[in-house]
């Protein structure tokens, strides 16, 4: 099979298709996922090919979508639900936190919850309120949920299949700004890395930058810019937020002695806080500077005309790298 260049949207679409071909228990459900193919077209063409029983346009009710997914999972199905935008996951929050996350525990492991909850997340698309949020910490904070974030087309293709094949509930975060942005070459015959692993996406020696989802691209740009100034940044795409895969992070920070974390979510009690705590505990004697975090201020996501000023961009991440070196 020849390799093709695909976008993240295409990678996810192909991954979903493959998962549905491989296992007829896989169902898709969500608002507008059928004929429309979802507002981002991630499920484009799937209802046509797999029928309305497997690609289900749901009534407009997120709690209903996730709650019925629980029932279908109990019946042996593997529901993959789409939340239309990050800000609309909250009507389902109760079902996710109290039911999806706890069923396995409550049944002492007798019952599995192989549900994937796909959430387009993050900002930078010029949208109105509730369409640009980064709720990952709320889910990573919840025992019983696994949380992953893809950052590129190839990962999108593999990670969605791995998440669907996984027996625990997975919150699957998709950086919506990247959906139709960059293309990458997909080799469908390759063997993907396991799902719950982080990955060094650029090797470096002077400082470690941790990123996931939409900020991976930002971090890579930073590394390029820093290189022209003679600084070598190592960039790690975390990919999995719960559980965290810390081994590559510790290995890196022990070498570089500096660590900057960047995400679009709020810094306060965000993923960066947990990462900083763990890195400090494990790499204390290697650190030349405290772990620094670049993310959102403690304000709701701003009106879109100024979102670029709020989002962690090249300058803000580099500024943190500078501050790390200034210690």
């Amino acid at each position, binding site marked *: 099979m020849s390799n093709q260049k695909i976008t993240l949207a295409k990678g996810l679409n192909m991954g979903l298709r493959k998962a549905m071909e491989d296992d007829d228990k896989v169902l898709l459900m969500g*608002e*507008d996922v*059928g*004929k*429309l*193919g979802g*507002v981002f077209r991630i499920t484009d063409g799937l209802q046509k090919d797999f029928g309305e029983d497997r690609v289900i*346009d*749901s*009534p*407009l*009710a997120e*709690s*209903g979508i996730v709650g019925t997914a629980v029932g279908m999972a109990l019946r042996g199905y593997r529901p993959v639900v789409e939340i239309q935008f990050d*800000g*609309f996951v*909250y*009507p389902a929050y109760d079902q996710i936190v109290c039911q999806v996350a706890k069923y396995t525990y409550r049944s002492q492991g007798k019952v599995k919850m192989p549900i994937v909850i796909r959430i387009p997340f993050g900002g930078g698309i*010029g*949208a*109105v*309120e*509730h369409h640009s949020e980064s709720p990952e910490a709320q889910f990573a904070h919840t025992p019983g949920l696994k949380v992953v974030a893809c950052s590129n087309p190839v990962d999108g293709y593999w990670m969605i299949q791995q998440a669907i094949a996984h027996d625990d509930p997975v919150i699957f975060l998709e950086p919506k700004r990247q959906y139709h942005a960059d293309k990458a070459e997909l080799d469908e015959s390759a063997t993907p890395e396991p799902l719950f692993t982080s990955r060094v996406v650029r090797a470096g020696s002077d400082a470690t930058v941790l990123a996931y989802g939409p900020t991976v691209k930002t971090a890579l740009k930073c590394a390029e*810019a820093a290189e*022209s*100034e003679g600084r070598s940044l190592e960039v790690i795409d975390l990919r999995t937020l719960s559980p965290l895969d810390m081994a590559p992070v510790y290995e890196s920070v022990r070498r570089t002695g500096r660590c900057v974390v960047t995400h679009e979510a709020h810094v306060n009690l965000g993923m960066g806080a947990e990462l900083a705590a763990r890195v400090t505990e494990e790499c204390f004697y290697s650190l030349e500077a405290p772990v620094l975090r670049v993310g959102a*201020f*403690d*304000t*709701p996501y*701003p*009106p*879109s*005309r*100024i*979102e670029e*000023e*709020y989002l962690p961009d*090249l*300058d*803000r991440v*580099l*500024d943190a790298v*500078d501050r790390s070196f200034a210690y």
Partner: protein
Amino acid sequence: MSDPVSFGPDLADVFGPSQTDGGPDLVQLLTPEGERVHHPEFDHDFSAEELRGLYRDMVLTRRIDVEATALQRHGELGIWAQLLGQEAAQIGAGRALRPQDYVFPTYREHGVAYCKGVDPLRLLGLFRGVDQGGWDPNENNFGLYTIVIGAQTLHATGYAMGMQRDGVVGTGDPDRDSAVIAHFGDGASSQGDVNEAFIFAASYNAPVVFFCQNNQWAISEPIERQTRIPLYQRALGFGFPGIRVDGNDVLATYAVTKAALQRAREGNGPSFVEAYTYRMGAHTTTDDPTRYRLNDELEHWKLKDPIERLKVYLRRNGLVDQEFFDDLDAEAKELGHHLREGCKALPDPKPLDQFGYVFSEITDEIAAQRDEFAAYLASFEGSTTTAGGHS
């Protein structure tokens, strides 16, 4: 094989055959052909002045919509939620309100906003991305646009419960008695929040009118995905009356909403109005309805245009002359100009100001973040390179 179990009445007997064109219960005062018909329960003796006013309101509302859509196409707005085709539903409801009544809108209630005296320019801010609803809800008793589907129906109910406690319901004083109207769509009727709003309103007999614009679509999903029975019939199950009105008939929508509001003001509790209408445009300017609905349907509804039928009626009855249309045309043009020029002049938000809006008073923590950010932004000033000298 055993006989199928019988369980309660046959639904077809209760609800009648499936109703494609509004059904027999549809309240209508003006047919699509512009014919004035009468209704035993809901009617109103419209003066020529009133009729011209409603016509003018609909034309200006459509103008707001057309201008905003064009502004989006020209990149001046990020997105726009069109109301094309829903002018009668919104003007009928909006004009039935008294100043003391309070509106809880969705994101599409541009016509109601206009009736409540909100400068349409203020509506554009949210869609341009300069604010998230720049108007003061209490200035015109018009709440902020609410994007999370259905959430506002609970706010409306709570507001109505507040009115009850303030003694502004059922006093018999027309200037004092008040009600709330909650706008929402057919899709929203599936949300838990909306159903809980029905329960609360019924439980407390709250003075709230649930005004549902059934425009047949929730983005790509047809009404059949949300309900198996006509929406207005659901109300009874919650314990209050529901009426289906021709939402493309401004006269009927006005008459029915007026009665529903009056009932609420008098202390007789909530009611449900289903304005049976059609979303003529896309869901928003980023939507492509050709992917999910047939053009035939659109053509069918074009014949029921809310503005056209009133125009026919006004003309046929000699209630308007050319001067009226010319004046209105000039007024619409002026409104368009106001929106075009005003939109481009809407100031961008100031990043540092945003920190001050999180709480009623800024906390030390947020103030520190603001100051740090200010220092960071200042580090760019006067340099052609970016912060910290990075190019």
